[in-house]
């Protein structure tokens, strides 16, 4: 049973994604901030991380940079799930940091998020 870490400061969405993944048979861990996310990732060592970008104090990009420094977690596939839009600055930065996918929350159904995670896990 793959373990998914959802790092998302918005409770509505983190709960909703958690519910979806749980019902689809995944084990879900949730972190409500960037800082908490880094700690949880290191502690839980999930199979895949769903990561929001716009978060106060420590944003998603900082989380990635932090995780890439740790050999224990640097290979965990990361999927960005944001509402930041399709600005190439962000997509470019995300690619540079080696994320698996860049999903726009409001354009992607929960089902498709699961599909993307599935795909990332298979590629691994």
């Amino acid at each position, binding site marked *: 049973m793959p373990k998914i870490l959802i790092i998302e400061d*918005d409770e*509505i*969405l983190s*709960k*909703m*994604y958690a*519910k*979806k993944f749980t*019902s*689809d048979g995944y084990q879900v861990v949730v972190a409500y901030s960037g800082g908490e996310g880094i700690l949880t990732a290191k502690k839980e060592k999930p199979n895949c991380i769903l990561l929001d970008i716009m978060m106060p104090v420590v944003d998603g990009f900082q989380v990635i940079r932090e995780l890439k420094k740790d050999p224990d977690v640097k290979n965990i596939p990361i999927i960005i799930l944001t*509402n930041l839009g*399709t*600005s*190439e600055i962000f997509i470019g930065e995300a690619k540079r940091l080696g994320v698996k996918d860049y999903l726009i*929350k*409001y354009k992607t*159904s*929960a*089902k498709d998020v699961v599909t993307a995670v599935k795909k990332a896990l298979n590629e691994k």
Partner: protein
Amino acid sequence: MAEVVLDSLSAISKIAAEAKDLPSLWEPLFDVILRTLQVDAGTIMTLEDDLLVRRVAKGMGEEIMKEPPIPESKGGISWSVVRSGKPAIITDIAKEKIASKVLAASMHSLVTVPMITRGQTVGVMSVFTKKQRAFADKDIDLFITIANQAAVAIVSIRSTELLEENRRRLSELEALNQLSKTVSTLFDFDETLYSIIGLITRIFKADKGVLLLFDHNDRLLKATKPAFNLTEAQVFDFRCRSDEGVSGQSFCKGIPLMLNKIDPETENVLSRAKMSDIKSVLVAPLKVKSQTLGVIHILSSKENNFAQDDLRLFSILSSQAAVVVNSSYMYRDIEQERKKDEALLSSIAEGVLAVDNNQKIILLNAAGEKISGFLQEELLGKKVDIIMNNNSHPEPLGEGSSVNAGSADKLPDSSLSARNDNDNHTLLRRDGTIFPARLSVAPIRDADDKGIGKIIVFSDITHELEVEQLKRELISIATHELRTPITGIKGYLDMILSGDTGGVNSETKEVVSEVTAINQKLADLVDDLLNVGRIEQGRIEVKPVAMDLTNSITEALKELSIQAKGKSLEMVFSSPQGRTIYSSSEPPAGGELRSNIMVKADPERVRQILINLIGNAIKYTPAGKSEIRNQKSETNLNSQNPNYAGKIEISLEQKGSEIICHIKDSGIGMDKEAQKSLFTKFYRIKTEKTRQITGTGLGLWICKQIIEMMSGKIWVESAEGKGSTFSFSLPIA
């Protein structure tokens, strides 16, 4: 003797010819009479209307001249001579009835002869002797001849006097004319009127002059300043009904009147104004065109001050006065109008700046002074550039708004539409700082519709822009924040529908599907609003690249194929050559039908536009046959044509350096009015047919903005009930 007579006659003719007035005639004439007739005294009386007036006398003392004129009723020798036209010879005055007491006392004999010329008696000439004397017939004959010679001279003197008088009045009239001509350049009308009234008063040797103007409110004639020789109180109290006394008569009848004796009614009017000393009046209406403004009075404390022929001249002079009164009225009106304008200009909150055709400033109102920090005085006559910020605008404004770049030269010329509004301007303050301004420029035209300058209404919109910015940010944040809950709702609904939460019955499934659709509409609205916000704030990114338009269209059609199928609408896409590239009714022919048409555009934005336009075509085209049973409300639309099948055709056309994409539907279409407003924000066609079609009214506005950002254009051709064709152009890559 005959020689003496001849000498006398030639002397008299010479005297008569040279005489300029009566005394200069009489003096030498009497000398001749004295020599030839051997008398002691002589006198001339002339006939004035029904009076015999003694004009000159010699040899009978000063007292005689103080005797009053003799009326016909009093009779006497002189009057009997006038009446009979024959000489009277009296040897003993004491025995006769003689009018003059002086003569009765001092003289003994007399001869009185009529002075006749051209059959008209102008007076009588008399000679007297202190001692009794009889006159010979030849003496009488000579005297008659002398008298008639004198008559000719008197008539000639009189006409000279008359001529002189006319000349005098004529010159006065000329002066008055001159005066009224200069009225238009005179600033002080009261002063002008005063001098005119004074002048008229003096011409007729009267004491007072005053205008009575008709007051329409209480229908009274009221004295008005300036008045000549009237006290304030008299001016205030001198008023009457419009039919009262001589003033009222003149006003009502519109004719000049002369009153040499005051009638009781006029007396009453005058006494109210404490002017009972007035004994004669000249009054004339003040007429301008068909309107009578009032009357002008010339008043005299002497009885019989005015002669009949004064009336005509007075009437002429009054009409001059009327012109001045009227001009003064008009001037007051204009002045009032000007003051109103001034008050208006200074009271409005917007700055008002007026320039002439040479772009020189001719006006800056109080608000303009406050906004700009300039004073009107320091701007008058200066070029408008002093306040227009010359290097304000980074990019030229769109066509039609030539109020541009703040440059004076670019103010709209008079040929442009009457008004021109624009927000995108900056103006200069006196301290050199720049402020954003909203301008409204309108040409000023004279009576002949010739442009004589421009009026610029401006306001400082610094604060407005700040508020606007804040508002946009707020909307942007709010709509962005809305996305999270919408995404959440969507996620949960999807879970229910896909059975993640356990099985759902078909009824529940239908209800949840409805909620999902509503949620999607909410998501679309938020999307549109965010797009509007981005476009308005210039935050939207458009990155044109060479891209294949046919591919984008095909993709969009595939994306929308479920919706089209849901309404049984056929969608066909054909190439510029008419070849079918995609058809929803037939499976694509074997192999990929590639017909690369490359345009320079942003693929994501093109997709957005295509989804929007084709989506609209689907929305506004009634469902095809197979759906009729399920879409009750749309049945009516198709009932006329049982073979109706909705169709959406997409075609491409190359025109010059552009590719034009046409999206033609067989939908409800729209009228010309709707077409005009179609691409404006929040516009939606509201008819019975569109009531149930949902939309934000933002889609086409967004499309237009984005297409224009990619150097394209968008337009529509449509007629009500006949479908619409939306077209947009993009540059060829």
